[in-house]
């Protein structure tokens, strides 16, 4: 049933709310998100690094398809090395079709015990699907079949939703989403089924936004994240804070950025009371803490 966002969640200023508490010794949780996508070559590419001469998008778009493919062939493995070195267990959000097209990549994730989170079936906005409900169910089923576990979390491709998406997600068993970036704390969203938790995801410590849309220099990965972190870390003396950071292999896994990504994670995690949790763990904490 289509619902206005405010019918799902009333406005509330962060100041003056009941206080949530992390376990002793923790003041800020980093939520690392690694996104794996399938770019179907028969369609326009999800993002572009190079536009064709005279600017008109052409099909097929080999150069931009290759850009993404490099991420899966090379970039992902660099990010994997980094995560293992730093002892980080990220949330892997994936288009379910990646289980079929890049099984080695998904297998590497499950071998490490990383959380799989559903990111639609293909990298296509939810608005463009003929049967959203069926695609959501299929995405969850395909990942469950591949990994043996039904995903608990969901990110829409490009975080897109229509006014009824949340109801289908809840119906399919999704417990949390990252699509509603509107708070520093988890919030509970009403649906026609069970409520769904929106975890505090991030728009701007996000490699697509920083690098592909805002065209910032690679070192901004580090300096922006540090600026962001310092503010939240200071505020975390008052209220618990979650800081999400989003990586895509074709952006964060390339040679000129990976160093900035790695030193960012390393420096943040070196602070007292800072740990990295995946989405499922943040969800479990929130559900227990709000009681």
């Amino acid at each position: 049933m289509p619902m206005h966002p405010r019918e799902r969640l009333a406005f509330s200023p962060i100041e003056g709310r009941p206080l949530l508490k992390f376990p002793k010794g923790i003041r800020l949780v980093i939520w690392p998100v690694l996104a794996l996508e399938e770019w179907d070559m028969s369609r326009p590419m999800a993002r572009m690094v190079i536009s064709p001469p005279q600017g008109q998008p052409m099909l097929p778009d080999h150069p931009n398809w290759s850009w993404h493919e490099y991420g899966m062939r090379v970039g992902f493995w660099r990010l994997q090395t980094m995560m293992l070195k730093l002892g980080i267990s990220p949330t892997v959000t994936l288009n379910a079709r990646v289980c079929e097209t890049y099984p080695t990549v998904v297998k590497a994730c499950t071998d490490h015990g990383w959380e799989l989170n559903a990111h639609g079936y293909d990298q296509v906005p939810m608005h463009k699907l003929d049967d959203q409900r069926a695609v959501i169910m299929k995405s969850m089923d395909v990942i469950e079949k591949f990994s043996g576990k039904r995903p608990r979390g969901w990110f829409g491709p490009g975080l897109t939703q229509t006014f009824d998406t949340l109801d289908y997600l809840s119906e399919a068993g999704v417990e949390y989403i990252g699509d509603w970036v509107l708070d520093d704390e988890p919030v509970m969203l009403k649906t026609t089924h069970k409520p769904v938790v929106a975890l505090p995801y991030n728009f701007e410590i996000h490699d697509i936004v920083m690098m592909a849309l805002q065209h910032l220099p690679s070192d901004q990965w580090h300096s922006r994240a540090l600026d962001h972190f310092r503010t939240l870390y200071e505020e975390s003396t008052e209220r618990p804070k979650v800081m999400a950071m989003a990586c895509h292999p074709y952006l964060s896994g390339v040679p000129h950025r990976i160093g900035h990504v790695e030193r960012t994670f390393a420096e943040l995690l070196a602070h007292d009371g800072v740990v990295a949790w995946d989405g499922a763990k943040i969800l479990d904490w929130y559900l227990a803490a709000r009681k």
Partner: protein
Amino acid sequence: MNFPKPAVGMLPNDRLDYSAITTRKPLKLPKGARLVVWTITNVEEWDPTQTMPRTVLTPPAGGSPMPDIPNWCWHEYGNRVGFWRLLQVYDDFKIPGVMNINGVAVKAYPDVVKACVDRNWEFIGHGYTQRNMQKVENERTDIRKSAEVLEEATGKRPRGWLGPGLTETWETPDILAEEGYDYVADWVLDDQPVWMKTRGKPILNIPYTQECNDVAMMLIQHHRASEFYERAMDQFEQIYRDAKGSARVMAISVHPYIMGAPHRVKYFRKIYEKIRKKRDVLFWTGSQIADWYTKVGPKPA
């Protein structure tokens, strides 16, 4: 100039003549101050059933899907979390706030309004909704409704106006003057206030800024956050120099969903750390600027 005249309203040069800033009679501020800085906070409510005014994340392969929940959430974050960070800066440096707010946002964000009323901020009209003034159904109704909503919430009728995206029709200043507004800030064409003719009584235009503005700097020009501080300081230093002999006005404009983000707010704070201590710089609201200029400046033509 031989531009065709609009059927209703006026061409810009019929409202005010060209004038070089160096040829004017010197303007003096109280106690030997050189310039006034006014800071504007813009609070908007975005209708989730319409196209979003700005976006931070576009959908895969582009386009403008409807509804656009992610970008609606982006602006909502500003009012749930970001605004309170900006407020801390205003409080710490005792900056008199100017709240430039959509009429609909007054009802949507009562806690934001209350925090500003409690601090005696000046509220100015920013359209009833965040829509281009050329696209609202009835401009006069929109302008009047904006004033009524603000008067109801704050007890005071707004004296100032800043259109959504600074948009105007040929007639906007006429309607604003008729509806009781004393000043407007849509005309970014000078470093001193200027009088503008309307078909009724004149209206004052106060210097505003397109480029010391987080929308332009962060969302359009895509600069790193530190540029907000760097540019504000460059702007400040030059205007301070220019103000030797005749006063100037500088504006700084922010939006909670942009400068209230954790990675940006420190650069907003840094500006005031640097300039708030200066003895010959005044921090005023728009109304204070309007009252001063009306008293000491040239009389309207």
